[in-house]
């Protein structure tokens, strides 16, 4: 039964992944990414990670992709890729090494053949994840908030329009 | 007590940071006050030190990085005591000596000096290898600033050379320190960098050899032992007067101190094996430094190469590995600090007046500056080891110690005694005697009251050490005996070092 859900979602995710890197327009990439994210959310549900699945939809699909789209609009949605490829061998090399990499990863993935553990019904609920976060991982959790703060500050600073070319070199 | 001593100058520097930079006089006085306060503490230490004991005294421990066994441990024995005394004495003099010559970025200058003092005192007093290393490297930073910011024309090059050369050599020492630590995990069953603990290890000769080589390289560059000396003339020449004084008077002693502190304690067998090599290099250094001095055209370079020669004497004394040699080497370190420091101050006096360091630009100065000539004469004779001055005590003991180990060492070393007179008198005659030659004769005014006070203090020290060296010798004797006793230790209970 689960296979019936898994195979279509996996196919959608793969198609979306190809779409992300192959699309000419960034907007299309963003939409393909959205498709991947949604597919993965379904997979998470299959893997008894309800809370994560919800987060995936809210944060990624809801916030991040929207942010991408926003920026794409802001930058006139131009492709942005210059006419000339400056690294002629980059594409070929990238494919070769990526293939090798894929081989390694697949070998690792298929080697991890341990059966799935039996789990309790409440596994992966917000309650359980939250409990773990606020006990064992309290310190990293707090640090994560600091990172967020830093991110906010950084984005604010970077986004501010500089006062009249102060110290900005065009080079 | 010792921690107070170490961090007092730093505290002074921090306080200085609060002063507005425009108030130059206040900054000068505050810097001087901080260094004088340090001197007072050092004097008190000198007073309550127990000369009969060869052990570390006033030891203070604190944990620092417990998981790695790094501790904060300081202590003083007879050897470090006299060097601490030297440091505490030289710094106020150096500050006074550059009273008027530094006007730009004075606050940073004074803070650098005080920071430097803390680092140097820390190096002399630390008993933990990591602590030692930290202070050792910390010395480089303010010193490189002193050369690079307040030096003369070619200062960037000199500062960079100084920094990289000494730094590169020290890194190997860090490797050796870590190696010792690792060996100690097996040998002693604990994680420690504590010198006293590590000293209880007894390493196989081969391991000692490698580790000693790594330590020795770091120290040899600092001393500097021929042929690792070439950073020295550049650094000296380009540094401001106070920088040269500190560099010559104290910084070079860090290297020789390292040899004394770690050689017999950690690597007795290696030291015994390396002694002839060290002596040979020392003798080459003595003769080479003296000869090269003779051919210099720049006064500061001349004094710098004379340092190579003098430090060669120190190393010769240490390589003799007997009481006279060690004591002589110790005294010679103090002497060199006083005399060569004074020589740099003297060059500084001339430079301040005419802005030239070239010997050819001077002549007959004695006629215009009689008091200066008298000071120069005394300092020169002290540097040339005239009996009755401090230099003689050191060279006599060193050569005697060397003679008892090998008559040839002493005979060759005595050649340096002759050559030292050759170049010193030559330089003195060129500058002070003959008809008056100077670009601006009217600027050659005699010593000011402040300069006179500095030199008076130095001359008092020259004769005090020369006529009653026991002030120092008595305090270090017990320690030197204890240190040397380690060299006779039978190589028992060897720890097997398992290769990892």
């Amino acid at each position: 039964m689960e296979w019936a859900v898994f195979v279509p979602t996996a196919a959608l995710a793969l198609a979306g992944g190809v779409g992300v890197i192959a699309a000419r327009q960034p907007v299309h990439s963003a939409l393909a990414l959205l498709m991947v994210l949604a597919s993965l959310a379904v997979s998470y549900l299959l893997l008894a990670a309800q809370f994560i699945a919800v987060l995936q939809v809210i944060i990624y699909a809801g916030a991040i992709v929207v942010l991408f789209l926003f920026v794409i609009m802001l930058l006139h949605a131009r492709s942005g890729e210059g006419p000339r490829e400056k690294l002629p061998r980059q594409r070929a090399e990238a494919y070769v090494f990526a293939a090798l990499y894929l081989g390694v990863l697949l070998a690792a993935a298929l080697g991890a053949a341990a059966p799935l553990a039996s789990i309790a019904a409440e596994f992966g609920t917000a309650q359980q994840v939250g409990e773990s976060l606020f006990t064992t991982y309290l310190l990293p959790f707090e640090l994560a908030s600091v990172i967020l703060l830093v991110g906010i500050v950084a984005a604010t600073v970077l986004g501010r329009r500089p006062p009249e070319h102060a110290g900005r070199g065009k080079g | 007590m010792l921690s107070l001593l170490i961090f007092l100058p730093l505290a002074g520097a921090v306080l200085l940071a609060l002063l507005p930079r425009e108030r130059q006089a206040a900054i000068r006085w505050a810097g001087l006050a901080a260094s004088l306060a340090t001197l007072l503490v050092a004097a008190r230490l000198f007073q309550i030190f127990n000369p009969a004991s060869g052990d570390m005294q006033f030891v203070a421990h604190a944990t620092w990085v417990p998981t790695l066994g790094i501790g904060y441990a300081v202590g003083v024995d007879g050897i470090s005591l006299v060097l601490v005394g030297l440091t505490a004495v030289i710094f106020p003099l150096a500050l006074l000596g550059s009273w008027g010559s530094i006007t730009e970025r004075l606050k940073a200058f004074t803070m650098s000096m005080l920071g430097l003092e803390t680092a140097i005192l820390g190096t002399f007093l630390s008993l933990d290898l990591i602590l030692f290393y930290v202070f050792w490297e910390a010395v480089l930073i303010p010193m490189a600033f002193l050369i690079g910011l307040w030096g003369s024309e070619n200062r960037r090059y000199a500062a960079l050379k100084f920094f990289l050369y000494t730094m590169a050599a020290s890194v190997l020492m860090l490797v050796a320190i870590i190696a010792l630590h690792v060996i100690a995990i097996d040998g002693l069953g604990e994680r420690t960098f504590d010198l006293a603990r590590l000293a209880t290890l007894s390493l196989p000769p081969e391991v000692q050899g490698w580790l000693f080589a790594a330590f020795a390289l770091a120290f040899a560059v600092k001393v500097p032992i021929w042929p690792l000396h070439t950073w020295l003339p550049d650094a000296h020449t380009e540094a401001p007067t106070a920088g040269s004084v500190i560099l010559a008077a104290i910084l070079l002693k860090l290297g020789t101190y390292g040899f004394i502190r770690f050689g017999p304690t950690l690597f007795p067998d290696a030291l015994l094996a390396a002694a002839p090599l060290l002596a040979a290099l020392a003798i080459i250094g003595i003769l080479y430094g003296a000869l090269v001095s003779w051919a210099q055209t720049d006064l500061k370079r001349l004094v710098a190469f004379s340092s190579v020669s003098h430090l060669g004497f120190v190393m010769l004394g240490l390589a003799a590995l007997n009481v006279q040699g060690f004591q002589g080497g110790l005294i010679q370190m103090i002497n060199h600090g006083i005399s060569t420091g004074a020589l740099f101050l003297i060059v500084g006096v001339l430079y301040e007046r005419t802005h030239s360091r070239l010997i050819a630009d001077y002549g007959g100065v004695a006629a215009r500056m009689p008091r200066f000539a008298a000071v120069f004469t005394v300092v020169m004779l002290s540097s040339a080891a005239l009996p009755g001055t401090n230099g003689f005590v050191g060279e006599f003991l060193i050569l005697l110690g060397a003679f008892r180990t090998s008559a040839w060492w002493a005979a060759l070393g005595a050649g340096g005694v002759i050559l030292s007179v050759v170049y010193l008198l030559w330089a003195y005659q060129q500058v002070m005697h003959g008809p008056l030659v100077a670009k601006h004769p009217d600027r050659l005014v005699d010593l000011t009251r402040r300069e006179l006070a500095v030199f008076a203090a130095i001359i008092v020290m020259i004769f005090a050490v020369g006529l009653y060296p026991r002030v120092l010798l008595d305090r270090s004797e017990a320690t030197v005996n204890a240190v040397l006793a380690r060299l006779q230790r039978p190589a028992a209970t060897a720890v097997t070092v398992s290769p990892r």
Partner: protein
Amino acid sequence: MVWPLLGWLTNGLIGRRLSRALAGELACVTVAASFVSALGVLLAVRPAGATDAAVSIVIPLFRWLGAGDLWIDASLIIDALSLVMALVVSGVGFLIHVYSLGYMADDPDLPRYFAYLNLFMFAMLLLVLAGNLLVLFIGWELVGVCSYLLIGYWFARPAAATAGRKAFIVNRIGDAAFLLGLFLLFTQLRTLDILQIRDGAPHLPEGVRTLAALLLFAGATGKSAQLPLHVWLPDAMEGPTPVSALIHAATMVTAGVFLIARLDRLFLTAPVALFVVGIVGALTAFFAATVALRQYDLKRVLAYSTISQLGYMFVAMGALAPVAGIFHLVTQAFFKALLFLAAGSVMHAMHDVIDMRRLGGLARPLRWTAGGFLIGVLAIAGVPPFAGFFSKDLILEEAFALGLSTGNFLPYALALVTAFVTALYMTRAAMLTFSGRPAEAAAHPHEAPPSMLVPMTALAALSVGGGLLGARVAGEPLVEFLAPLIGVKAGEGAVVHPPAGLLVGISIAVALAGIVAGIAVHRGRRDPALGAIAAFLERRWYIDDLYDAVIVAPGRALARWLAGPVDLGIIDGAVNAVGRVLAAVGRAARRLQTGYARQYALGVLVGTLIIVGYWMLR
């Protein structure tokens, strides 16, 4: 001894503020006080010394330095030898201080002069009174420094400054050997105390004794200007004349002789070393005398004669007769100081003209000076009853005795020839200076002031009568005084006594012949030595030139070579080469940084691929 030190301190530190006259007088007073003190000590010791003159009183001062088994006590020693030396030093020193008052009256920097002079007196007294070889060495070096300072006193004159430097350096060479000798003695005996060395020395192995004695003698050759380290003394004449008289004639240069007498037991038990001492002394005496024949600078003539006379003293030492050497030392101090002071008086009168070819006919205007000089000449030539006769004769006798007992007549022969040459050149000098036509430079010669004449007179009197101290006719008081202490010839009771009368006759004949020859040569306007030999002598046997060519010039060249190509080129070059190599590596590595982020990303991918692959395949 402390007196001159006080004088030095006051003159050196506050002399500038004192009136000029006061500075000089203060210096004189301090030295006079030393002399009186020494005399007082002599009288105090005398009652004891009359019965037991070998007694040595040691005055410990303080423990100077110590390290391990080395302990150096600063101590003084008072015995016959040191007292004699102290008296000579302070006595002659006093006279010369007084003389300086007149001679240096015009100098603008008088306090400095007297400060140096007082420092010298202190150092010299320290040297002769030292109870420990290391303390002696302090004095030894310190007199060298004073000599350097005083020779270079007129530092504005390059020649003076260079001469001072030369003196110091040459002395230092000897001192280095001295120091090694000290080390050898210490390692063998564990002490540097003079009395203990005296007691311990005879028990040392022969080789050690010889080596130690030779090393110390090398030190003595430096200080006493013997071959081959004599070159500094003639140049030292650039200093003020009283200084030449005091340091380079009467006192400091005799320190080497004193040293051997002080350590007599070490030297007398080392025959090989003693042999060397005798030969070097004799050769030096002969060499210096011949050179003096062809010098035109009056002071240089005297300088070479000093070297020659010092050679005599070493001959005496080599002949196992230190007492005779000390005796000659004392008389030489008198008459040589006299000669120098007279020469100084001539310079004073002639506005520093010292070239004898430009002098002449001065006997009339400088009556007193000429008289003094004449007495000096007679004394040095060894004409009885002047002082030099007795002492020189004693040395000749001892040298002859040495020849008899060992078959080595070389010292005697050379000494005898030297006696002739000495008389010859001294006569020549006297004639050139004082007789004949008044020379061109004789503008308005004027006799010296009393402050200069009085010391000359006193020294003249001593030159005449000083010989009585050791003359056989007067019962040899000095010899009696010293003999119990030094030069005990153990086991040589039955020395073959030479026919004393005959030898005395020979000496007198030689001296007179020399004088007559000198007069004859001068009359005949012929130079005593001819052609190539003359040039040879004039260039001082080419020894100075040899040193310049063989030691100084190559040394300088070596220094330049080391400083230039070697230090900057090779050693520093190697250091900078390391730097350059690193910089080149850096430049090469820089090309890896293309600035294309994607290329870096590919690098990251490959890197992780390698790492992951490694872990998986392991």
